[in-house]
């Protein structure tokens, strides 16, 4: 675990100095919120589920931008070989990269979600603590599958194009559940009515952290 935290520290430091991933994630997500607001018709009151859909499209599309960089930056100057040669287990690298992606998503969301309330109305902010729980669980699911796929596409010729093509089909259920649960939150639906979907979101994260942990080794060694 200490090794993983060292890699996380390294990546956060690099990001803090270069600021390339976070800035493009936040900018793109913000842009999507505006574009989708225009697409929905300016000045129209949206119902909860449509608003939830807009929020999640912005978050997921912006997160893919950051995800592509998480492993492809290690390919530059063959840094990944150095990482693999160092006495760090591949599983630790996977855990570290998942955490880095998770943190990037949280940082982007800290900007995007308030921006969402500004554009679409703060009546959606009533159940903020529960929204935070949903967001963190979806981040977990997205980061675990995403990091595994990011390792795959970083080894191909068409990294940036291929990643969403591979990732989106697999995370479609996650997005559908996130939209449904967030929509229920926005519509003041009582907890017991959407709790079972929340469990499926959590299960997605836990299942794929296991799958990723087992399979990452095979992917990264092919480099």
């Amino acid at each position, binding site marked *: 675990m200490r090794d993983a935290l060292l890699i996380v520290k390294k990546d956060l430091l690099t990001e803090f100095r270069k600021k390339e991933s976070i800035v493009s994630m936040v900018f793109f997500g913000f842009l999507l919120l505006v574009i989708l607001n225009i697409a929905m018709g300016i000045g129209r009151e949206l119902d909860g589920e449509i608003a939830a859909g807009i929020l999640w499209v912005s978050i997921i599309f912006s997160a893919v931008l950051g995800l592509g960089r998480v492993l492809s930056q290690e390919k530059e100057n063959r840094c990944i070989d150095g990482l693999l040669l160092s006495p760090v287990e591949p599983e630790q690298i996977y855990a570290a990269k998942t955490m880095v992606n998770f943190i990037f998503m949280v940082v982007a969301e800290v900007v995007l979600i308030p921006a969402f309330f500004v554009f679409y109305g703060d009546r959606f902010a009533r159940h903020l603590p529960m929204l935070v729980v949903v967001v963190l669980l979806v981040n977990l699911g997205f980061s675990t599958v995403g990091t595994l*796929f990011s390792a795959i596409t970083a080894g*191909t010729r068409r990294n940036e194009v*291929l990643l969403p093509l591979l990732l989106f089909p*697999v995370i*479609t*259920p*996650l997005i559908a559940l996130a939209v449904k649960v967030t929509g229920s939150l926005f519509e003041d639906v009582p907890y017991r009515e959407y709790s079972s979907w929340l469990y499926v979101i959590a299960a*997605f994260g836990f299942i794929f952290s296991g799958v990723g942990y087992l*399979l990452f080794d095979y992917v990264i060694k092919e480099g």
Partner: protein
Amino acid sequence: MDNGFRSRVLPVVVGLLFLSAIYTIFFYAPTERVMGIVQKIFYVHLSMAFTAFLSFFVAFVCGILYLTKKDIKWDVYGSSSVEIGVVFISLTLMSGVLWARPIWNTWWTWDPRLTTALILWFIYVSYLILRTSVEQEGKRAAYCAVLAIVGFVDVPIVFMSARIWRTIHPVVIRSDSIDMEPSMILTLVITLAAFLSLWFLLFKLKTSVALTCKRIRFLENKMEGGDL
């Protein structure tokens, strides 16, 4: 590689099974009272859906075997299986759409089974796209094995999450009973056997072509190296 007699018998068996499937579907099985002639698409639809799931399961198992054994033949088996599976899942979706229009009065609905089939289609088409994007054999095999495993693990989650929407898909076969006439069951069994034998034939042809390709490439490399 395989003996000539068997490779000539199998296509004949597949052909005979398909002829008997067509005969039983149109002349033996009774016409359903409410849905009429449209119901006959069910035999083909269910058989193709089953073969598609079988293909993806085979790819999942081959993926695990490739990663543990590192033998390239498991990659050949897995990728051939996915290619056939994509054809069958596409046909399943199309035949379902054709049935749904007259019966449900809509081409498409977000029912768990339909949604699962559609997302499966997306996952395994992305598998085929991934195959064209990697040139090195070992790397491509490992990546595709991982995707086949992840895709298959995703199936139950897709199905569970799609229950958000209410189901209107008919449930004909439950774990304890089958809501069908005996003659309809027999028709279904024959059609299913026809499609399974077709799957096996395609799988054999596809893998033997792929293995022959590998052998030719190996020999070509050897000749260029001047060893022969």
